[in-house]
C-alpha cells in the first residue's frame, strides 16, 4: 500500500508492505526498520529502531488526530490511487467568515450590534455552557454582517452565531 500522509501540514509518501510477518516500510523513499501491533481499538504499539511508541488514534467527523505519547498531530491520509480522502477547503481565508458555536449552550449576551466594525479576537457574544460563560471571539477583522443568534437562544455546537465580512 502507498499513502500520501499529511502530518501537521507536512506531506509524506508512505509505503507499507507486510511480508513473512514483517513490515516493510518506506517513508519518502527511505527505508524504516519498524514493527507494529494493534493492541486494542485505536491504540497502536510501534517499535522503530528500538524506540517504543504508544500511538492513539482520535477520529471525529472530518478530522483525524494521532497522539504519539502525549503529543498530538493532525493527520490526513490519501490513497494516491483513490480520489477520496481530500479535505475540502472548508472556507478559505478571505470572504465572509462564519462564527460557529464551539459548544452547545445558551446565548446570554450580545456584545456588538450588526454592522459593527470589529477586530480579530474581539468578543462578539457570550454563550453559557456547563455553568460557565464563554466569550465567542471574532475570527477576523471586519464588519458584523449578520448576528444570527438572539439573546436567550439555545444553540447547538456547530450552529452559526454570526457572520463577519
Amino acid at each position, binding site marked *: *500500500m502507498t*499513502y500520501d*500522509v499529511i*502530518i*501537521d501540514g*507536512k506531506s*509524506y509518501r*508512505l509505503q*507499507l508492505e*507486510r511480508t513473512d510477518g514483517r513490515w516493510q*516500510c518506506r*517513508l519518502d523513499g527511505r527505508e*524504516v526498520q*519498524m514493527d*507494529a501491533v*494493534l493492541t486494542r*481499538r*485505536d*491504540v*497502536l504499539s*510501534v517499535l*522503530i529502531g528500538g524506540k517504543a*511508541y504508544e*500511538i*492513539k*488514534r*482520535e*477520529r*471525529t*467527523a*472530518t*478530522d*483525524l488526530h*494521532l*497522539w*504519539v*505519547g*502525549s*503529543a498530538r*498531530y493532525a*493527520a490526513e*491520509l490519501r490513497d494516491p490511487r483513490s480520489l477520496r480522502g481530500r479535505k475540502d477547503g*472548508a472556507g478559505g481565508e478571505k470572504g465572509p467568515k462564519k462564527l*460557529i458555536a*464551539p*459548544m*452547545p*449552550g445558551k446565548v446570554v449576551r450580545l456584545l456588538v450590534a450588526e454592522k459593527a466594525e470589529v477586530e480579530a479576537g474581539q468578543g462578539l457574544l457570550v454563550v453559557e*455552557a*456547563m*455553568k*460557565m460563560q*464563554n*466569550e465567542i471571539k471574532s475570527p477576523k477583522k471586519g464588519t458584523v454582517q449578520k448576528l444570527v443568534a438572539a439573546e436567550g437562544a439555545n444553540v*447547538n*455546537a*456547530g450552529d452559526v452565531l454570526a457572520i463577519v465580512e
Partner: protein
Amino acid sequence: MFKKILIANRGEIAVRVIRACRELGITSVAVFSDVDRASLHVRKADEAYHIGPPAAAESYLNFSKILGVAQLSGADAIHPGYGFLAENAKFAEACAEAGVKFIGPTSASMEMMGSKTRARQEMEKAGVPLVPGTARGLESAEQAEEVAARIGYPVMLKAAAGGGGKGMRLVHTREQLKSALEGAQSEALRSFGDGEVYIEKAIVNPRHIEMQVLADEHGNTVYLGERECSIQRRHQKVLEESPSPIVGPDMRRRMGEVAVRVAKAAKYTNAGTVEFLVDQEKSFYFLEMNTRLQVEHPVTELITGLDLVHLQIRIASGEKLPFTQEEVRIRGHAIECRIYAEDPDNNYFPSPGTITLLLAPSGPGIRRDSGMYEGWTVPVDYDPLLAKLIGYGTDRSQAISRLVRALNEYFVGGIKTNISLFRRILGDADFLAGRLDTGYLDRLLKTKLPEAKGEDAEVAAIAAGLFAVLEPAPAVAGGGCSVNGASGAMNGSAASGWRKAARTEALR
C-alpha cells in the same frame, strides 16, 4: 447507622459517595435527570430514580422531587455531595422536617456562614484573624477614606451579598476611592439587589489556603491539615495540594486552631473547610467557611489516611469522632488535578461530547475518582468536571513525578480535556519551587507555549498508514465500534443530539 442513603448529586462525587456507602454496608440511592440516565452513578448505585429534565432547578435542585425519592425509597439520610444543594440551608431544614438526616452541618451553621458580613461579625467576636477593614456596609465616601487611611492602601471594596467578583473594586490610591465606591455600590445593587459594600485591606498576591475541619455532634472538633488551593482560573480551583509548600508544623497548628475556633463559633458539625487568605509574610486571614465536603477532599484523605465520607456518615449517624487531634498523623504529600471537559486550545471552553477512547492511569501513588467511561456522552448541562486524578508521594517531588507519569498515561479521546494544562503546571519552575498565589495560573497562561517541536511527526505519519491497514474504519467519532458510540442514545435521551454536536464541534 443509616440503612439507606440518597445521594442528591451526580458525576464523580455521586460515585464517590456510593462507594463509601457500599463500604459501610449502606444501600445507596441515586437520582438522575433525563440526560444522566447513562451516567456512571446510575450504573453503580443500588437504586436509582429519575427526577426530571436536565435543568438543575427541575431536578438536582428540586427539594420536593428529591425528598419524594427519599420517601419512596425509604432513605434515612441524604448526602448532598458538593454544589447543587450542598450549602442550601433551606434544604437542610426541609430534610429535618421530612425526618431525613441531612449529612452535613445544621441549617443554622450554614446560614451564619452564608452571609459574608454576618460571618465576619461573628468571627470578629470569636477573635478570628480577619483582613483589616469594616464588618459593616460603608455609609459614605468620607467614611471609606477614613478607614482606608487607617488600614493602608491598596484596599478592596466588596459587596456584602457578593460572589463571583461582582461589586468588587481594587483601589490603589485615595483619588480612585470615591468613584470606585460608587461603581461597586451600583454594580452590587444591580447584581444582588443590595448595594451594601464594605472595605477590606487588599492582600497583594495572596495565597488561598484552607483548613479541613471535622466536628461530631458531641462537641469534638479537629483539624486535618491544610490544602494549598492558590492555583485557580476564573475563581475555580484547578489543582490543590497538601501540605502547602509554605506551611510548616507550627503554622499548621496555628491555622488549625483558628479553624477549630471558627467551627466552634458556628456550632459546626460534620465536615467543613475554613478558607484563609495568606499574605507574603505568611499572615493568614479568615476568608469564609465552606459548609460541605470539598471537591479536593482526597488530598487530605491521602495525607491523613482517613476517609472523610465515611466519617461524614458516621458523624451524621451520631457517632463520636473515633480519634483525637493528637492521633491525626500527617504523612507524605498529595496533589489533585481536576480533569475538566475543556479545550485548552480554545480558551478552556467547555467541550462536551462522546468519549470515544479512554485509557486510565493506575499504579503506585495514584488515586482516580472518575465519573466518566468510554462510550459515555458528557452532557452539556452541568459542571465540566469529569474526574480527579490524585497523586501521593513520600514528598512533594515524588507526588509531582508520579502525577506527571500518570497524566502521560491518561488519554481521553473524542472530547477535549485540560490534561495538557497539568503537564504544563507540574513542569513549571515557579510551581516546582512552590511560588504560588491566586494570580499564578493567569500569569502562566499568558506566557506563550514554546512551539511544539513535533519531533515524532514521522512516527505519526507511519502510524497513520498502519491504522489504515490494520483497522480501516470510517472516520467518524466512535466509528470503530459504532454500537459503542451510539450507546448513550439508547434510552431516547438527547444523546444523539450531543453526538451530532460533538461531531460538528470537532470541525473547529
